[in-house]
Each structure stands twice: as structure tokens, then as C-alpha cells.
């Protein structure tokens, strides 16, 4: 059984300078109340590993606007001009990673792989400085694991032991980042008794989840 915590309590667990994996794709499926709490707590120098930085005023974009972030590892920042502006001004470090490589690197970090070999990025700036390894006559890039201190997971529903369900395109990075952090905090829309989510519907087993965010005030 988990103990539900408030967004402020969750934010208090996360120190300045922490590395956060955050779920969501253009803010869809992101843990919005956790993000708001981090902004309210005036966190600084965070490293964010996520698909994108959304847009100003939405999802991870709020952390960018609040200048809470020192470094971003993402596949796309094109719809957030603030990310681009801070990057060009040298205030924000950005590592761009192909989306498929990014999710595989996070998965590798979560399932204990030392790395994966991929053809994506060969012949592009993504290959710069990376080891190339040949297997059966084909060349691949060696991509190394990514992990976070915390994973902030947005989800549709949780039960009391932390089993999680996701909905439609709000799955995205969430089930994978839940594998790859020292502390996993899940923000469900609703929390239901054990047994309401049948075993076959569980996408993230509760044993991966350290904290559940309490239900939103209605």
C-alpha cells in the first residue's frame, strides 16, 4: 500500500540540481500538478530528460519559463521558442537525441542494459563522438543508458498498491521512465481500490512506484 502525498510534498522530495525523467508528449500525459509544484517551489538547475519541452505555459514548458532547468535531453524543442532562446543565450544546455534512441536509452537504463546498438543517427551529427560497432557487416552506433534521480509519471488511474494504467496517446514515455529512476512519483487522475485494475490491464506494476500523488481537489 502506498501513502498518497501532496504535490508540495512531492516537490519537497526533489532537490535543486536533480535529474528528472518526465512523461508526456507535447504536454499530453505529463504530470501537470507535479510540474506546477516544482515551479511553485522555485526549483533550480534541474536536468530534464523528456521527449520535448512542450510549449510555453504548458507541461514541461512551465519549467523552462520558470528557468528551473539547466539542461535538457530531448528529441524536439521546436515548439517552445523559450527553450530555443535560452539555449541560444547559453543559459540552457540542450542535448538533442532521436526519439527512438531516447526511449531505448531510457529503457536500457531501466532494464539494466549497458547500451544498445542502433542505425539511427549514423551519418548525422548524432554520431559525433560516439563509438561505432559492426555486427554482421552492418555498422551501428553504441547508445548508452539514461537514468534519472526521479521519474515523474502522468497516468490515467492507479490502485492503492501503485499499479498504473494509461490512456490512448498519453502512454508515450510514461511506462518506460517508470523503470529508470531511483524514485518514481506517479500522478494519477484517479486512485481506485486494489482489484479495480485487473492484472492484465496493469502497464506499470506498483512495485516500481514509490509515491502516488493524492487526488486532485474536486
Amino acid at each position, binding site marked *: 500500500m502506498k501513502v498518497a502525498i501532496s504535490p508540495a510534498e512531492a516537490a519537497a522530495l526533489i532537490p535543486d540540481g536533480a535529474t528528472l525523467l518526465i512523461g508526456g508528449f507535447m504536454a499530453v500525459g505529463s504530470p501537470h500538478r507535479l510540474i506546477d509544484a516544482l515551479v511553485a517551489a522555485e526549483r533550480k538547475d534541474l536536468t530534464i530528460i523528456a521527449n520535448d519541452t512542450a510549449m510555453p505555459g504548458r507541461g514541461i514548458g512551465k519549467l523552462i519559463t520558470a528557468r528551473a532547468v539547466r539542461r535538457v535531453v530531448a528529441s524536439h524543442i521546436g515548439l517552445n521558442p523559450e527553450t*530555443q532562446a535560452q539555449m541560444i543565450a547559453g543559459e540552457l544546455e540542450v542535448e538533442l537525441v532521436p526519439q*527512438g*534512441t531516447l526511449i531505448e536509452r531510457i529503457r536500457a537504463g531501466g532494464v539494466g542494459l549497458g547500451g544498445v546498438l542502433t542505425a539511427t543517427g549514423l551519418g*548525422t551529427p548524432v554520431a559525433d563522438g560516439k563509438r561505432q560497432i559492426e555486427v554482421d557487416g552492418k555498422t551501428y552506433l553504441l547508445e548508452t543508458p539514461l537514468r534519472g534521480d526521479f521519474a515523474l509519471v502522468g497516468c490515467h488511474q492507479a490502485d492503492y498498491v501503485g499499479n498504473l494504467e494509461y490512456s490512448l496517446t498519453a502512454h*508515450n514515455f510514461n511506462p518506460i521512465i517508470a523503470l529508470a529512476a531511483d524514485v518514481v512519483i506517479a500522478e494519477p487522475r484517479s486512485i481506485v481500490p486494489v482489484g479495480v485494475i485487473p492484472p492484465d490491464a496493469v502497464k506499470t506494476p506498483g512495485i516500481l512506484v514509490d509515491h502516488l500523488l493524492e487526488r486532485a481537489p474536486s
Partner: protein
Amino acid sequence: MNDKERIARRVALEVERDTLVNLGIGLPSLVANYLPDDVHVFFQAENGVIGLGARPPEGMEDPDLTDAGGGFVTAVPGAASIDSAMSFGLIRGGHLDMTVLGGLQVDSHGHLANWMVPGKMVPGMGGAMDLVAGARKVVVAMVHTAKGAPKIVPDCTLPLTALRRVDLIVTEMAVIEPTEDGLVLREVAEGLSVDDVRAATGAELLVPVAPGQMRLA
């Protein structure tokens, strides 16, 4: 018919029935509008649904169901939700039959550059590198020139998206197939000559047989 519609209509003819197709944001997304009724395909959005549908009725939008650009969509009957590892597993594992992407440049080797202009536009590659490296068929849908300058060039001057040779280039002027020997001109839009296309193209075009008129249906 404007240029974009012309391009989308022509690309739609490349879509085979019962396949999995990924359409990029912008021009490529228009292709869905011109599929014949008897060609059933599943559209994939890389953010995670197989069976992407049209915009939902007003008031019935679901914040958990969007396309890769964040716009509201529906899911067709038989749709499947997938996470990003599965989404890119499908893309990189050769399970995606076709992707349609925009382009900044394509060169005589069939190499595509479509994700950054150094010093100007650094949006990130998103899923583009994975799509070009992994899809079974890559179609580039783009206008033929940018402010009068050819986008089809001898060698890309912009950073590449992948080393893979794309399968087809469709513009409002022509249909061009990159091959081992170079760029082959396959079709020319109605009212244009081969020389018109050559004049707007920076790379050499091979014309082994008389190109047909660009089909639109």
C-alpha cells in the same frame, strides 16, 4: 488545385491497402484526405496510437488523444494504444510500411536533410531520423523550390537526417525516384516540360524513358 493539394494527391497514390503509414506534421498530414475509399490503412502517430482518425466532433475532444503535433484526433475502430518504446520499435524494426516526410533538401544520393538549419532553426529531429532509418518506404513530400532556390541539390549542405536513400520525392512539379545511379525523373506535372523541372532542380536528373504526366488520381 494548389501545390500542396497536388503533392498530397500524388503521394496518396503511393499508399497501399492494409498497411501501416506514418504521416509527418504539415504537408504530409494532408495525404490522409486523398486516399481512395477502398484503401484501408492504419495511420500511426509516433506519439502512440495505431489507427489515428480525423478530428473529433466539437466538445468530444479527449486530452489523452492527440497527434504528434498535439492536435486532437480520434481513434478508428481496431486502434491500439502503444507506448513510445513500442512506437519506435515498430518504426525501427521495419514494421512501418511507409512514412511521408517533409524535406529541406534532398540530394543526388537520395539523402534527406529535414531537421535543422545550423544557426537558424534547431527544433530537434524528433522521430525523423528513426523514420528515415527504419521505415520500409520513405516518401519526401515537399515544394520543389524554396524562395526560388532548388531544394533538390547535388549534395545536401544541411545536416543529414539519415544515410538511407529515400524511395521517392514528390513535389508540385515532378515525381523523382532516387536510385543507385542518381535521381530519375518519373513524372512531370501537367503543363510543364522536362526542361522546366530541370531548371528548378539543382541536381542532375536522369531521364531514361520519357516521363509520364504526374498522376493525381
